[in-house]
Every structure is written in C-alpha cells, then in structure tokens.
C-alpha cells in the first residue's frame, strides 16, 4: 500500500532531528506531530513519549528521522540517522531529508522485516497543525446518528484530526523550557494565550455562582403553590409571554450551571445560547430606549382605545351588513335578526369594558413596556398577547358561530340518516338500518327541513367569523415565527463560520504542489469549511413551539364540519 506521511508545515524549517508522531497501521499512514532535536538521550525520549501516551491515550512513538541540511549532504549524518533506526525500533523507519536548493524533499523508508523488498510509493501531505488541532470534523449529516462507532474503524481523516486534537499536551512545551527534550511544533516559539480570555475565565466563576443563586430564587417563586391555582395556571398556560420567559429561564440555568461542557456539541450550544441571549437583551434595550424617548409609549397607549373602538365599529357595520342582504343572498329574517342582535349586544358589552379600563391603560402599558428590557423576543410575545386580548371578542364570535354550525351539521347528518331509514350504532361505531315509527319519521322530516333551510344563514355567519379569526391567527403566527427564528438561530456558530471558518470542518481539500521526478508526491491539505446551511441545521437550538401537525386536508375537513381549530399549539400542552 502507498505510504502516506502527514507532515506539519510549521516543521518545514526545523533543524535536523527525529520525527515523533502516530503510526496508523491499517491505513499505512504516519501522522507527524513534532520533531525532537539533537542532542537527546534516547531513554529520556522514550520516557517522555510514554508519559504523553499515558495522558493523551494516543499511541505516540518515534517514527523516523528528519534532516534539514543547509550544507552539502554529509555521509556520516545519514549513517547516524540510519543507526537511530535501530535504537528506536519502528517498522517502517521513515527518513525525510530536505536539501537547501530544492523545494522537493526526498523520503525513503527502511523495512527490516518486510516480505516484498520493492520500494513502495510515498505521498507527503502537508497540514497546518494549529488549524487541524482547533478544527472539529463534522460527519455528513445523514450518518450523524451512528452511536455504535468503533474507534478502530474511524475514517482516515477523522483519525488524523483526532490524533492532533488529543495531543494538546505535547504542544505545551516550547523552546524556552529547560527540559531535556527540545521539540519543534506549531507552538514551539512560545505558548500563546489571551489576557482577555483568562480574565473572563476567572470572572465567570463568581458570576455563574451569583446567577445560579438568583435563578434558584426565581424558579422557587415560580414553583410556589400560590401560582398554581386554577384561574392563574390557566392564564399562564395561555399567555405566550410566560412560555418565552420560561424558555429563557431554562437557557440561563443551562449557561450558569457548574458542569463543564463534555463535548463539542454542548460547548457550541452553550455559546450559541449565550450570544443569542446577549443579542436579544441588547435589541430589547434598544427598543425600550426608542419607545421611552419622546414618550412614544404614551402616544401608543392613547391610540390603543381609539383603535379598539374602531375595530368594534367595523364589526358592528359588518353585522349590520349581514343582517341585511349580504352579497345579494336572501337570509332567513328571524334567525338573522336574533343572531345579529346577540352579537351586537356582545360588542356593546366589550366596548363598555374597554372604556372602563381606559384610565388605567396608560399606566399598565408603561410598566409592561419596561419588560422589553428582558429581550426583544419577550417584547414580541407581549405584542402577540396584546393582539390576542384585543381581539378576544372575535375569538368568542368564532366559537359561538362554530358551535352553532357544528350542531346544525351533526343534526342534519343524523336526520339525513333517518330519511334513509338508517341509524348510527354507537356500540358498533357504524351505520345500521332501523325501522322508525310514523310519528318519529314525521317529526324527523320536519326538523330536517327546518335545519336545512336555516343552514345558509348559520353557514354565512360561521364563514365570516372564521375568516376573521384566521386573519388574527395568521398575524399572531407571523409574530411567533419571528420569535421562533430568534430563539433557534445559532449565532455563535454562524459568526465562527464567518470569521474562523477552519474551526467547523466539513472535510478537507488537497492541492498538488510542485513535483519532481523521483521525489515523492507532495500535497497540501486544507480544511474545507461547512456550508452555512449545514451550520444552521447542525447547531439549531431546540425551541418550544411545534408547527401545526394538521395537514391542509384535515384542516379543511375540520373547518367544514365546524370543529374548533387550534393551529398553533405549544409542545407540552394537552391536546383538546
């Protein structure tokens, strides 16, 4: 098989020495992690490598020799390097040498116990050590859920990324250390660290503790028995603001928990939640400052009552139109008047209640507007709840109309079965034939005729109020869609993909470098970053809302039969 040597590009200019890394025998590839320079004592090198192997669980060993000769090739040096092969016995012993005047390196292998004596081909692949170490290789999306993945048959690339990532401790010693071993790797010029990151790490511990304490207080209050009594608990479950606040509370608890993130996914999730919260609160404070500047919230409160009045007036006009001859259809006058007057009285009651509340509206709105500092999503949820409260009478009308229509449809279908001499068998859940008496048939036919001729009127009222209700539902749905988008967008991952695209790797790409006859093939391995769509799909945050499970046909069927529709249900709510 072809021998593949993965060489870090930072070691290209290193002094001569021996190569240290991992040998993956089933793929015949050698991943070089560092170069150990002369002078060294072989026993100490072996001890050091055993230490590293114990800590990182990566089988690091001496793989070969590296000679970077600035002068002409020295015979004694090459013999010395071959002799090293006998001290550190490794099969095959790789010898890479770089001459001063040529870009192409020569690489040869020494096999002592091999069956076929012919020279096997060598491919030299350069890789950027720092980028490969920091990068996380994502499996293709379809195969992500294979939990019984044995570490032995990890794919070749995954093995390489894994090796470099786990060998962090090897990269901690730099050339200014006074140890017995002198290494060259990407950090050998000095370990880098950032003061800001260190300061934040120190500051985050007390901040997390404070946050945990506050959150435990808040969740203790929320869970107290006082708030669980029936009217209040019903109210909390209906208001979307409470859902959103609970969701954000959960997020805060996740961020401020003491446990460290176990793996990459959890770390990214924590980071995404943190950035999303930060942006949310920032936008919320911006909105708040815009609302409270020039007392815009006062103006808003002032226009709220006239808007409610206007909506009520429009509804009254609509009902007057229905009570007349709407769209040229002829209604049953008596039923029309009854229904129309009933709804008009309902609107009158609603308007009276609104006017009763009008002196307090401004104050309530002012305090409610303050809660926009908790986040833009909370402000949007409050808006959606205000719309729901203001259009409550439309919801009531829809329910009345739907129930009436539903009753009528069921009555009609049952009496239609009577017409044909059949009956619904509740025990067997099917239609059976039945012989009726003459008076039963007479009354049944009478009722059927009455219901049938009153059907257009009820149907029209039902249609009008259903359309209005659907309009309100669509507006609320759009707001919730926006809130959902803001909740689930993985902003930190997108920023990472934009600025440090090598951290999220979908794969690698190879580029063929200059070739020379007789010298091994040289390739440059670069990281192929994940596409934005896959980033969003992999790192999406889970949200609490679920999209309507009803397909279009079942929705239409429900509307036709007059059953009540609840298009946007939240997860965890009991189904009606």
């Amino acid at each position, binding site marked *: 098989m072809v021998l593949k040597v993965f060489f870090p590009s930072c070691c290209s200019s290193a002094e001569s020495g021996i190569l240290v890394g991992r040998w993956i025998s089933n793929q*015949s590839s050698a991943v070089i992690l560092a170069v150990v320079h002369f002078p060294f004592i072989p026993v100490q090198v072996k001890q050091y490598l055993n230490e590293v192997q114990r800590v990182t669980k990566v089988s690091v060993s001496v793989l070969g020799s590296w000679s970077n000769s600035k002068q002409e090739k020295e015979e004694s040096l090459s013999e010395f390097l071959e002799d090293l092969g006998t001290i550190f016995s490794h099969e095959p012993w790789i010898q890479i040498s770089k001459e001063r005047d040529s870009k192409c390196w020569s690489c040869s292998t020494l096999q002592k116990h091999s069956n076929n004596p012919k020279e096997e*081909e060598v*491919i030299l692949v350069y890789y950027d050590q720092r980028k490969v170490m920091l990068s996380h290789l994502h499996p293709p999306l379809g*195969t992500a859920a294979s939990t019984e993945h044995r570490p032995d048959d990890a*794919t070749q690339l995954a093995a390489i990324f894994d090796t470099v990532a786990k060998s962090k401790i090897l990269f901690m010693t730099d050339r200014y250390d006074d140890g017995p071993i002198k290494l060259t790797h990407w950090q050998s010029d000095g370990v880098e660290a950032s003061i800001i990151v260190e300061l934040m790490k120190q500051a985050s511990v007390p901040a997390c503790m404070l946050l945990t304490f506050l959150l435990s207080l808040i969740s203790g209050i929320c869970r107290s028995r006082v708030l669980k009594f029936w009217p209040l608990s019903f109210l909390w479950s209906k208001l979307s603001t409470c859902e959103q606040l609970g969701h954000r509370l959960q997020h805060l608890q996740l961020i401020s928990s003491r446990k460290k993130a176990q793996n990459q996914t959890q770390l990214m999730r924590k980071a995404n939640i943190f950035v999303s919260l930060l942006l949310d609160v920032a936008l919320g404070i911006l909105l708040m400052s815009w609302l409270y500047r020039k007392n815009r919230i006062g103006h808003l409160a002032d226009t709220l009552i006239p808007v409610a009045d206007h909506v009520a007036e429009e509804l009254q006009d609509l009902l007057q139109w229905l009570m007349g001859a709407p769209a040229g259809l002829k209604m049953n006058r008596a039923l029309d008047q009854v229904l129309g007057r009933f709804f008009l009285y309902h609107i009158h009651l609603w308007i009276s209640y609104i006017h009763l509340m009008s002196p307090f509206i401004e104050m309530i709105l002012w305090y409610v507007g303050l809660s926009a500092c908790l986040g833009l999503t909370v402000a949007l949820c409050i808006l959606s709840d205000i719309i729901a409260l203001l259009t409550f009478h439309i919801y009531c009308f829809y329910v009345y109309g739907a129930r009436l229509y539903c009753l009528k449809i069921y009555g009609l279908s049952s009496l239609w079965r009577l017409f044909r001499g059949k009956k619904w068998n509740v025990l067997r859940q099917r239609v059976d034939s039945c012989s009726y008496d003459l008076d039963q048939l007479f009354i049944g036919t009478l009722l059927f005729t009455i219901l049938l001729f009153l059907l257009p009127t009820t149907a029209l009222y039902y249609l009008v109020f259903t359309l209005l209700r659907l309009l309100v539902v669509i507006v609320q749905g759009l707001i919730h869609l926006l809130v959902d988008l803001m909740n689930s967008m993985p902003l930190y991952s997108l920023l990472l993909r934009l600025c440090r695209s090598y951290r999220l790797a979908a794969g690698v*790409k*190879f580029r*063929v470098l200059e*070739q020379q006859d007789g010298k091994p*093939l040289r390739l440059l391995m670069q990281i192929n970053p994940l596409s934005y769509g896959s980033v969003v799909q992999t790192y999406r945050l889970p949200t609490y809302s679920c999209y309507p499970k009803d397909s279009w046909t079942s929705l239409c069927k429900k509307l036709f039969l007059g059953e009540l529709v609840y298009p946007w249900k939240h997860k965890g709510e009991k189904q009606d």
Partner: protein
Amino acid sequence: EERRYRSASGAAIALQCRQHSASCRELAVRCPRLQLRSLSAVTSAVWLAAYGLYAVSENSMVLSAAIFIMLIGLIIYLHFVKVDQESLLVIGSLGIQVTSSYASGKESTTFIEMGQVKDVVINEAIHMQKVIYYLCILLQDPRDPQGVSEVVPLFQSSKPRLDCLIEVYKSCQEILERRKTAPQSS
C-alpha cells in the same frame, strides 16, 4: 494534454489529463465560456422591457431598478450558476476530490475518502427528452459490503459525451485497480 470533445447538448468542451505521479491523476473538463451574444441579448431584452414600462408609467425608478436587477442577476449567475471547469483529482489510497470552479473564481470542493468509494462507473440517465451517459462514484454502505449507499454524479454542468467519459473512466480505473491488488497491511 488537451483534447476537444462535445457535450451532451453539442457545446464544445475540452478535457485535460495530468499525471502527477504513479498514483495521482488530475482530469479537468473545461466548459464553454459565457457567450457575448447571449449576454447582450438578455441585457437588451431587459432594458427594452424597462424602457417600455418607463414610457407607460413615466417613473424613472423603473430604469434604475432595471440596471440594478441586471447587475445583481449577472453577479449571482456568475457566482452560483456558471461553471467554468470541473475537475477530478484521483489520489490512490487517499481518495477522490471533485472540484467545480465557477466563472467568478469561486471553487467548491468535495473530497471522498478511498475507504468510502466502492467503484466509479458510467451510468445512463433520462434527462429531459434525451438519454445521456454520466460518470458517477458509488459510495460503500458501511453496514452492507455489497450495497451502495449513495451515488455521486460527476461533471454535471459540462455533461460530456460517451467518448470523453470513457477516457476519464479508463484513467480512474487504472488507479482504483491498484488498491485491490495492493497487499493490505494488518
């Protein structure tokens, strides 16, 4: 070495083979360039329509909107749609790399490891009203040694004809054969 062939729709394409080493080959198919006459035809059609709208509505925003739309459309077309060259880099015992370079210089690359590649074959497909040949890579199903988990079609924008595909197929198979004959080291 560059040879001329024709694509499935009759356009002129060129195939270039380079052998970097005994186990590494690069095969690149170059697609026909963007024609000046089609570009000018589309531009003049859009501008005539915009001018007609302007004559009807007397709103000069229509003209600036048309120019804007043309520019944005051209940039989107060059960056996301128009493929300049599609190449295949086969490295024995490492993998196969498929690259598409767009007219704006963007390159989109996919690398498939040799362990996942089952075979490279020429398949037939029904495309619109024609039956065309295309080259594809069959990926191994990890659970089933005889099964194929995915089919990756190659050269989708240039769609070379059978003679060109046979050349590419022969080159690939020479390298792929070696991995079967090479002794597996335990």
